[in-house]
């Protein structure tokens, strides 16, 4: 059946590949933190054990060990004990199986710092902020960067001479540096915009006009700090792709046929976009990483800050939860880009369909 649907076959093939990648990512997420000596229960116990006698401390510890799946539990929820009366440790393998099941159900475990809050709860609050910041900056930054890069390649001359060094500079500035610069100039020196946060602290998050307008006001600087840099980086890549396309035989032939300039411009743009889309897949991880760091500069209430706070307090479940979420999102974005390329490039379709 698949034979007759090359497009479907392509999509399924890619989906399978990304699923494998996802499983690898989950595996890394599980094993890497457990390679270190860090044990969440020790961390919590250091915090809560003060003032408890040994017996009740042991009971509390056992409770936590159960919760973090470090000891074996029988069907009745009782801790399984060995002959010496000590709780039997869960093997890494079965921990992993449990973890896999939980992750797939969207449960990322419990937080240490904000115990007994679940990690998914903490992250849920941060996701909208990060999405609102990153999705538009990367999508629009990518589009506008490509248009400007194509224009620079096509027009050359003065426009290119001014634009190119500017774009090169923008692509070289790290997002966090640019963020600091914006904060210093437009928030501290001039007080045009707020320096930190995602909204006025006097407000509670809600879909109300005062809250939304406050959020928009706080949005400007973080947005710019990432957006302009994405534009710069993409424009550089697109410019050189377009210069290459302009030298190809098919552009020369179209010119000799007397095809209109704007049509040729469209050919060039579309064909140069395809490698740019592939490039996006490769650079997306870096872009997202850069934007997460930029969030920190603005103390923006997104995932970047969540990771930072978690790192500062050794809240491993939150760190790994955030990491898994970011990785998954990047994978989904990559998958989308992949499908778009397959859709837009007949060459890939032809190869996939076996002709």
């Amino acid at each position, binding site marked *: 059946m698949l034979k007759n649907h090359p497009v479907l076959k392509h999509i399924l093939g890619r989906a399978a590949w990304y699923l494998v990648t996802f499983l690898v990512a989950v595996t890394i997420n599980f094993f890497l933190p457990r390679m270190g000596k860090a044990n969440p229960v020790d961390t919590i116990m250091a915090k809560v054990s003060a003032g408890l006698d040994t017996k009740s401390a042991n009971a509390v510890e056992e409770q936590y060990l159960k919760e973090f799946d470090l000891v074996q539990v029988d069907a009745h929820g009782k801790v399984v004990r060995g002959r010496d009366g000590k709780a039997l440790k869960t093997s890494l393998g079965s921990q992993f199986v449990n973890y896999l099941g939980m992750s797939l159900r969207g449960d990322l475990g419990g937080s240490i710092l904000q115990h007994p809050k679940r990690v998914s709860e903490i992250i849920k609050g941060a996701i909208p902020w990060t999405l609102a910041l990153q999705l538009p900056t990367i999508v629009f930054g990518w589009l506008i960067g490509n248009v400007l890069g194509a224009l620079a390649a096509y027009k050359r001359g003065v426009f290119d001479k001014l634009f190119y060094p500017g774009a090169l500079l923008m692509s070289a500035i790290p997002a966090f540096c640019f963020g600091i610069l914006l904060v210093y100039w437009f928030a501290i020196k001039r007080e045009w915009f707020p320096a930190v946060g995602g909204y006025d602290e006097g407000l509670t998050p809600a879909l109300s006009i005062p809250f939304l307008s406050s959020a928009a006001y706080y949005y400007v600087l973080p947005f710019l700090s990432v957006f302009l840099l994405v534009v710069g980086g993409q424009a550089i890549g697109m410019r050189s792709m377009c210069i290459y396309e302009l030298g190809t035989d098919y552009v020369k032939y*179209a010119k000799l046929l007397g095809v209109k300039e704007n049509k040729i411009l469209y050919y060039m743009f579309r064909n140069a976009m395809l490698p740019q889309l592939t490039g996006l897949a490769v650079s997306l991880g870096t872009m997202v990483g850069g934007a997460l760091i930029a969030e920190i500069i603005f103390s923006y209430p997104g995932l970047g800050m969540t990771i930072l706070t978690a790192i500062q307090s050794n809240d491993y479940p939150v760190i790994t939860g955030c990491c898994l979420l970011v990785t998954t999102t990047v994978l989904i974005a990559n998958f989308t880009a992949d499908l778009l390329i397959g859709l837009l490039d*007949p*060459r890939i379709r032809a190869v996939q369909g076996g002709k």
Partner: protein
Amino acid sequence: MATPPIFEVNKLRAHYLTRFGQTIQAVDGVSFALKEGEILGIAGESGCGKTTLVSACMGLYIPPLHLTSGDVKVDGQSIIGMDVERNRKDVLGRLVSMIPQGALNSLNPTRKVKDLATDMILSHDDKADKKEITGRLRERFEKIGLDANLVLDSYPIQLPAGMKQRVVIGISTLLNPRVVIADEPTSALDVTTQKAVIRMLFDLMDAQIIGSMLFITHELPLLRHVSSRIAVMYAGEFVELGTTEQVIFDSRQPYTKALMGSMLSAEPGQKSKKPVAIEGAPPNLGHKIKGCRFAERCPEARPDCKENQQLIRIVKEREVRCQYAE
């Protein structure tokens, strides 16, 4: 003469300006005329200026290529010195069209054949109706022997090399150009496909879709069957221009003779006729050349050949650039 020429090229000179300020005179004083229904072959080694001649003849001067002097006329109207937009709209593809060398990469890989063809028509006629164009394309492609149903909806990658070249020819001749310049249209193809392509070009001429044709190649034997007249090009100049019979079987200019002598054929008896290669390389066109440009390699060169600039003479009813040819 009863019929005026369709295409006239008069003392055309064109040069490249390199980034380092060097001038390369790639086409240096070329003149010829084409009549209705005529195919003129242009033969020469690589680097003799054949490919530059194509752009120069279309009035399309994109830096680093520049017009030095001379004129090109189609039906008596000069196409030189127009602004770029008028040249694009009225000349390219319409009066003078070209068939490129490497058809493999000449088609936009992400555009269906019919879309490129539609772009081509719309670029010259803003008012054309899209639906009507599709019908027109279908009709034209069927007429020239291409399976319109299959080809028009294909992307270039789906077509084999020979088919791609025929599609390119179909698109290049959509607007019934008066002159077609074919730049080595068959050199990348194997002999069987080559024949099909030539057949197609003949059909286009016979159906009067094409007025006349310039056929550029380095394969002299091919020109024997394709063109009625042949011009031999060397170092930016025509060195001999005559009928196919004259040039191939009775050449007078030493370079043409050498070129003919280097050809092979599968005829019985030919095995004993030993082909002789031309030693050496053509002169560098970046320098001013004194005297005959072929003198360095010419087996018949005399002492003064390197001194005297060679002019076109009429020898045995054809144009020859050699003072000693007879």
